């Protein structure tokens, strides 16, 4: 069985020079595929080739079984539409007129819009929630509004395949999430197939059915977000050396300060995060403990603390770990109590606090 969109042995590049080869993609109808990878990795080159703006160097691109590069320009325009990174500056175009341009492959020689065309333009305006902007001059809109208009224009082409190159660039978090939610809606409810590139790996993992990592001359990984992010850690894909990435939550931490710990943070249940972040900002090497392995504080401590004491979940803290934490704590100049309540399982932390208080190490009291 062939997928709605496929590439086989595709090689892309400029002026006959191959940048990325052996690209094999299979994407079902109504799926969202997102290309991720560092700047200049060739995401745009792949998208431009898929959008037929650039000739393929080798291999094939098929949409519903027909070879993309053998279709007429008009056929392609009816099948796929694009949202590009280049910023457009059309003067004196109303939003409605600009979206109307999307009817290009369907209109007559002078581009006259029929009643049907106008109805479709209206539907597209409604779909991206910009009906009230219809008569506004495009150039007077905000970046978020502009991006919606550009998306509406693409939708007016009534494509089955939507190709978007970094559609969330220039957008704030509200507009980013709204745009991606809209794409999910189009994919699931309207059966639109989407291929795009994103810089936000966290959003890419959350919004996409498939991820494709571009790195070097070949595809580094291709599959569901879960498969991809586990097989190829983001730190490796982006050659992240000064920080870390949590694939489950998509959160980014800055570089940890290595060295002998100077501060010991007694934390747990998320109470320790502000103190740990603050120490990281001050570039103070610190230790954290005693944290259960399923605690959010443990996740953050692993990324930020130069050493930490982690206990197995669902068990009381062992004496062995308590002794280890005690030694670590006494080697520090001071101790911070993150304010985590002491209960049955973490009573060892209560004993650590008492010791710290006794020795005058506890600083935030």
């Amino acid at each position, binding site marked *: 069985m062939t997928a709605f969109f496929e590439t086989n042995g595709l090689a892309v590049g400029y002026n006959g020079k191959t940048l990325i080869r052996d690209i094999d993609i299979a994407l079902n109808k109504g799926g969202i595929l997102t290309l991720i990878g560092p700047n200049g990795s060739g995401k745009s080159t792949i998208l431009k080739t898929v959008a037929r*703006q650039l000739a393929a160097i080798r291999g094939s691109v098929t949409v519903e079984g027909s070879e993309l590069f053998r279709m007429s320009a008009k056929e392609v325009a009816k099948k*796929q539409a694009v949202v590009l990174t280049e910023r457009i500056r059309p*003067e004196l*175009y109303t939003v409605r*007129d600009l979206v109307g341009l999307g009817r*290009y492959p369907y209109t007559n*020689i002078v*581009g006259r819009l029929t009643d049907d065309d106008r109805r479709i333009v209206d539907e597209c305006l409604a779909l991206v929630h910009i009906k009230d902007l*219809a008569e506004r001059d495009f150039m007077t809109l905000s970046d978020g509004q502009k991006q919606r208009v550009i998306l509406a224009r693409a939708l007016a082409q009534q494509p089955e395949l939507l190709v978007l190159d970094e559609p969330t660039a220039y957008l704030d978090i509200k507009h980013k999430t709204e745009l991606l939610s809209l794409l999910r809606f189009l994919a699931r409810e309207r059966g639109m197939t989407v291929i795009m590139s994103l810089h936000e790996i966290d959003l890419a993992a959350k919004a996409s059915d498939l991820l494709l990592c571009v790195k070097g001359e070949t595809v580094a990984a291709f599959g569901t977000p879960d498969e991809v992010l586990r097989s190829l850690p983001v730190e490796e894909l982006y050659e992240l050396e000064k920080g870390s990435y949590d694939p489950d939550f998509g959160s980014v931490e800055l570089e940890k300060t290595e060295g002998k710990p100077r501060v010991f943070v007694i934390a747990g249940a998320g109470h320790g995060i502000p103190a740990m972040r603050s120490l990281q900002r001050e570039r103070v090497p610190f230790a954290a403990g005693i944290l259960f392995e399923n605690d959010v504080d443990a996740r953050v401590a692993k990324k930020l603390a130069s050493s930490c004491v982690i206990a197995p979940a669902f068990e009381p803290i062992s004496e062995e770990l308590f002794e280890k934490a005690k030694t670590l704590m006494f080697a520090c100049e001071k101790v911070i109590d993150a304010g985590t309540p002491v209960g049955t399982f973490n009573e060892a932390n209560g004993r650590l606090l008492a010791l710290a208080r006794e020795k005058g190490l506890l600083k935030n009291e």
Partner: protein
Amino acid sequence: MEKDKAARRGMGRFSLVICLLFALLIIALALNLAVGSVRLSPNEILDLLKNGRNASTESLIVFNIRMPRMCLAAILGGALAVSGFLLQSFFRNPIAGPFVLGISSGAKMIVGITMIFLAGSISLSPAVLVIAAFIGSLLITAVVLLFSQKVRNMELLLVVGIMVGYICSAVTDMAVTFASEQDIVNLKYWSMGTFSGKGWDSVVTAALICTPALIASWLLSKPMGAYALGEGYAKSMGVAVKPFRLALILLSSLLSACVTALAGPISFVGIAVPHITRTLLKSSKPALVIPAAFLAGAVFCLFCDLIARTVFSPTELNIGTVTSIFGAPVVILMMVDRRRRAGQ
């Protein structure tokens, strides 16, 4: 329905602008027929128009001098405005025009050389001059395009265009040095730019070249609209970008060459008139702007020509002098306004 109202409002504005321009055109035509060193009353003109040519001086003035001159000013003014609009679509920038990019000067150079060095061997019919001007236009357009690949900044490209224009003028001046007395008189007269002294043969040549070129330009409205969003989007909508760009350049060059060959270089009409037209229409839709800009160009040049030949009568001003006085401020205001808006 809301959308119909909106669509009608757009078309309503277009109809209004067209009606206004037609009214101005009729006024301009009437004034051009009546006003001059020999002033004719409306009745005299109507009489002449009704009864046709006769042997009187008035008939000669109306049918052989004022009428062809006014037809030429109207056709060429319109052609120049459309030529400018095509260039602006090509560069996706409203400050492009055949004069500021040096294209008119290129046409002038080749026409000048033709006038001086080929005057003896071939007859200098209007058609020959148009061909010479077309070659000159294409030559300089090619040079400007070559630079445009290096300089992405339009303002810088204008500077290049103006410099190229100076080089062409220098070459023309050099050619003049080697010309005979009679050729110089002809050349000087022509190169200052004027609609005067042109007969019906010039009008026919202008009409024969401009009509098909203008229709072809209007038929490019659809891809021009898509191209306003940039090459990438145009391609994605099915525009064959390369042939389209070539067609734009050829048509624009042909129109401006026709003007330069028949009336000499005329400045600023190509930028000022399309700008005024877009502002009046509140739209850049090529299908609307092209016909409106043609009419506006005709009106603009008719009034400028009227001023050129009446203000210091019996001395006539160059048409380029008058179009500069009215056109250049429009261009300056436009550039300042764009800067201001870009800064926001």
